[in-house]
């Protein structure tokens, strides 16, 4: 493929997005869907065309020329496709295509399909820009772009209560991150003098942790950029928007809030890992935040009843895992888990979408209990996805090896933050604990859905049992099942005889895959998880046992309040800010204007006082005149 074809990657979906936005209103869903799929598919195909280039270890790059070129900054509108980017392109456009296709079925009765598909296409385009960009500024363009699309898509059901607020929260959080990001970039630029990813990496590689001041511009830049990445990837303390984002259509949750956009932060930090390698303190910070996210996500996933929220908290937890890998300075593991997670979480979300569709937009697992038995393909998808999510079966499920690798890398590192030093071993125990939790929430979900006693929604509608309707939904689920299963194989390290080495090299720009865990080494954990999973499943598949659990459910304040993060933000940030706004707009403005009015009042008062002098009486005037003359004489110097 010629390099300029790179440019066409984002252009295809962008063009179809534009087309749909402008003229989509009159078209029917199928046509719209077709157009949308076409845009993404073309990108995918072109991307595939670069496979040969990349597999040869070469890079393709293309530049439109300067995007901004002034005295203070100059950045190209340039794309660069190395193997990392290639893998991401495949992920984005491949999953993008599949999920768009899925949406054709999923959104068939939507009132505004054109808007939906246009946004989806735009998202793919932005995401492609993000992964293809060869410099931080252009990344920022895509970065904000995906945020916008995410916002648009979350707000798709704009009439429903809560949806606008959810969209707004996602928007706001992302904007905070964006601000941090752009300032971080500015700091980095000020320090390194370049926006280029490769340039940055090269310059950072030339430094070492000892040779750079921990308080330098670069450190601040790295920290700020990290803030941006946290916001985008929903790491604590910026994680609150992600569960809310489930208000959007399910395919969106699958594509944006599971597979691609939320991993953009991971992608970016991994790209900049040479810089982060310089600052152990910052990595310590990442450790803390990622651990918090990991735990919060897993714990909260256990107590949710909304099917999508369960998955969303699970996503949080997994993102935490990825950041842990980054904190351990092991971007390879992070990337690997990124792909693995994308594979099984997209599958799970789409399966959940299928369930929701079949149950006429019911999302409460209690009501959905037992629904899977009517939905064979969805059932298979769920099982594969859940197994992947827990990482139970090495070759059949996507998450196993990547999680193991994260665990390994964390265990070999150590947390340093200020004077706090924690060994990686301790951390890895925490992670393993959380892994058990993941077995709990996944199989709790599965238990519900496989329950023998059907919930209300599983009983069907108008006498019809829930059923899978759409061809595309089924098709895509099927494909993803294969992908999910296959990824386990693809990611398996050589010690397991898998293709992991090749894939790892691809996703990590030719880096050598570290020696993976031996099966024996992983076995105990595996067994424990298996037991936990089985136990959970048995509990929740049984309506009677389940009921006890549900009865206790109401009282858990800490969990019901999601560790009070929302309340904290509300009372510490939003309420004061709004109050300040009201205060300023009412009081400060009035006082400021009041000052003006006061000046006017002073003028009037002065005017009134002078008025009294102007009595109209002749003698007063004469006295004034004589007094004035006298005053003039007093002005004389040297009396």
């Amino acid at each position, binding site marked *: 493929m010629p390099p300029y074809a790179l440019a066409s990657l984002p252009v295809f979906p962008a063009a179809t997005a534009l087309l749909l936005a402008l003229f989509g209103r009159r078209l029917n869903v199928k046509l719209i869907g077709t157009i949308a799929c076409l845009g993404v598919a073309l990108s995918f195909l072109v991307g595939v065309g670069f496979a040969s280039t990349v597999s040869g270890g070469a890079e393709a790059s293309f530049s439109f020329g300067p995007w901004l070129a002034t*005295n203070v900054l100059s950045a190209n509108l340039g794309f660069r496709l190395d193997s990392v980017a290639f893998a991401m392109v495949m992920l984005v456009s491949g999953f993008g295509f599949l999920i768009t296709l899925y949406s054709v079925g999923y959104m068939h009765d939507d009132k505004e399909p054109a808007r939906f598909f246009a946004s989806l296409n735009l998202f793919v385009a932005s995401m492609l820009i993000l992964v293809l960009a060869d410099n931080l500024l252009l990344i920022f363009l895509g970065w904000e772009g995906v945020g916008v699309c995410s916002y648009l898509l979350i707000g798709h059901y*704009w*009439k429903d209560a809560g949806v606008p607020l959810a969209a*707004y929260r996602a928007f706001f959080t992302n904007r905070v991150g964006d601000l941090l990001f752009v300032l971080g970039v*500015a*700091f980095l630029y*000020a320090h390194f003098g370049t926006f280029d990813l490769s340039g940055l990496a090269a310059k950072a590689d030339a430094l070492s942790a000892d040779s750079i001041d921990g308080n330098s511009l670069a450190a601040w830049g790295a920290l700020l950029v990290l803030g941006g990445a946290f916001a985008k990837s929903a790491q604590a303390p910026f994680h609150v928007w992600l569960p809310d984002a489930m208000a959007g259509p399910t395919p969106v949750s699958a594509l944006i809030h599971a597979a691609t956009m939320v991993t953009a932060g991971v992608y970016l930090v991994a790209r900049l890992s040479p810089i982060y390698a310089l600052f152990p303190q910052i990595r310590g910070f990442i450790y803390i935040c990622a651990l918090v996210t990991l735990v919060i996500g897993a714990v909260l996933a256990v107590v949710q009843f909304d099917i999508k929220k369960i998955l969303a908290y699970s996503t949080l937890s997994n993102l935490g895992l990825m950041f842990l890998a980054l904190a351990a300075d092991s971007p390879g593991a992070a990337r690997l888990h990124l792909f693995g997670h994308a594979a099984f979480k997209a599958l799970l979300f789409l399966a959940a979408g299928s369930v929701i569709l079949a149950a006429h937009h019911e999302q409460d697992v209690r009501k959905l209990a037992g629904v899977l038995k009517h939905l064979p393909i969805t059932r298979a998808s769920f099982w594969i996805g859940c197994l992947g999510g827990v990482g139970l079966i090495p070759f059949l499920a996507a998450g196993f090896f990547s999680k193991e690798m994260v665990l390994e890398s964390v265990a070999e590192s150590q947390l340093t933050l200020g004077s706090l030093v924690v060994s990686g071993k301790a951390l890895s125990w925490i992670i393993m604990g959380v892994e058990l939790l993941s077995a709990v929430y996944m199989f709790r979900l599965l238990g519900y859905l496989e329950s023998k006693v059907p919930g209300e929604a599983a009983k069907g509608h108008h006498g019809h049992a829930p059923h899978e309707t759409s061809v595309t939904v089924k098709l895509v689920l099927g494909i993803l099942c294969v992908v999910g299963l296959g990824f386990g194989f693809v990611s398996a390290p050589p010690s397991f005889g898998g293709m992991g080495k090749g894939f790892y090299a691809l996703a990590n720009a030719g880096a050598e895959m570290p020696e993976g865990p031996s099966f024996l080494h992983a076995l105990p954990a595996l067994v424990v998880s298996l037991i936990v999973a089985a136990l959970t499943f048995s509990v929740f598949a049984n309506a009677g046992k389940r009921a006890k659990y549900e009865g206790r459910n109401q009282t858990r304040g800490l969990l019901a309040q999601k560790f009070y993060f929302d309340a904290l933000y509300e009372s510490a940030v939003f309420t004061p800010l709004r109050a300040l706004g009201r205060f300023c707009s009412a009081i400060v403005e009035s006082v400021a204007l009041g000052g003006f009015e006061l000046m006017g009042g002073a003028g009037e008062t002065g005017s009134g006082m002078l008025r009294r002098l102007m009595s109209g009486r002749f003698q007063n005037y004469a006295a004034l005149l004589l007094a004035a003359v006298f005053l003039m004489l007093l002005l004389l110097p040297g009396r």
Partner: protein
Amino acid sequence: MRGTLLSVAPFIPLGLIALHMFTRQGHAKLAAWTQSLFGLFLAALALPSFVSDAPRVAVDGFSMMITGSGTVFKTALYLDARNSAFVLLLGLCLPIIFVFIRPRTEVKPSYYISANILIGSLLGVFIANSLLLFYLFWEMALLGAYFWIGLHGQRREDTPALYTALMRFVLITLFGSLPMLMAIAIVILPSGDVALADLGRSISILSPELRGLAFWGFLLGFGVKLPLVGLHGWLRDTYAVAPPACRALLSAIMSKMGAYGLLIVLVPAFGSEFGTWGPTLMAVAAAGAIYGGVVCLGRDRLTDVLAYSSLAHLSLVALAAFAGTRGDASDSSAITAGIFQVFNHGLIMAFLFALDDRISVDGRGILMSEVGGLRAGQGRLTALMLVAMFAAASLPGLSNFAGEILVYFAAFRVSPWYTFAAGAGALITAAAMIRIFHHLFFGARRGNVVQAADLRIPEVALGLAVVSVWLVLGLYPMLFVGPVERAFATVVAGVVP
């Protein structure tokens, strides 16, 4: 050729005034057409400046001695990429304003007459090449706005008292422009009326005190118009009572007079003052951004939020201007960034205010606490408004995005932390704007506002044209930034007499 057109341009509003004088009633359709054509003319006049190697156009009119003072009053016009940005902005805003916003009831011709006084003066401010002519137009603009608002402002129970607001507008504006006049008096002292580009040379021979006075005088004048925070007392009520078209023009163009002054008149000339005061002023600008944003959060009415968002966004322009501290060629990017933001913000605000006016039948400002779900009746309007809101929030792909990045980077070199604060202000502003947008347009239908009909197809087309400008400049900002920067460099290098 362009010189001729340039000298003709200020007289066209006079012609339009004459045209309206002969109508018995304000003729909205006629006005929409004529103003749009005038706008196109201005755009055509300005656009060639953005072609690389476009020469600077300068026209000298008559000059005369002011009897009393022995100073010379010159009339001269110029056009280069820098002020072309402003002229282009004016040209693009005119169709938006006059096509989207029509008076709801029959108006007297004075509506369009005063509008054209304002428009002509704005144009004059942007193309005048001598300080006195500049000031002349500056004050005329105030008069135009005064009569427009006074004669056709909103006298409803839900708006502030018209005359109080108007008086406040006039007095606060003059609180700036009178010191500015003093500054001009100081500057023209040695050698008579000066061309804008010669300002720096002209003040270099002044005594330090006079120089300082001139600096603060100019700053106050421009700062009030912009407005800088603290000098913005006129903002809210004026926007509330102004007729919608005037409101749009105020925000889109008239506030840019202040920006023009800062970016093109003040900063390039007063290098050493900015060296001293630049960071402090940047702090003021950053405070303005935050304050504007915070107040936005506290407002309930879309019009008010737009007004205060203007305060916040223009504070970013000011930030850029104050970041151009050294006033030499290496600072051109700060100025360029400012000019770029001026252009973006103007177009956005004209569009937003125009759409705001089209929401309800009676043009009443609608309260977010009472009204919601408006999207159901006005899909197209909502879509366009959303894009405009995005543009205002400087989302990527739209020109404001590139502009804001430029501003941040330019300001960053001088003070990272003020930049950060300003960015936070912009963030809060964006949040507030999106928030009220959500409350008004999304969710279930609430409130009993009589919604106007949705936009018509031609209007949508016009809207899309505007959006495409944002898009093009967002994706390829160098189209705009390059020529402006070159023009600035030329001026600083002293090539232009």
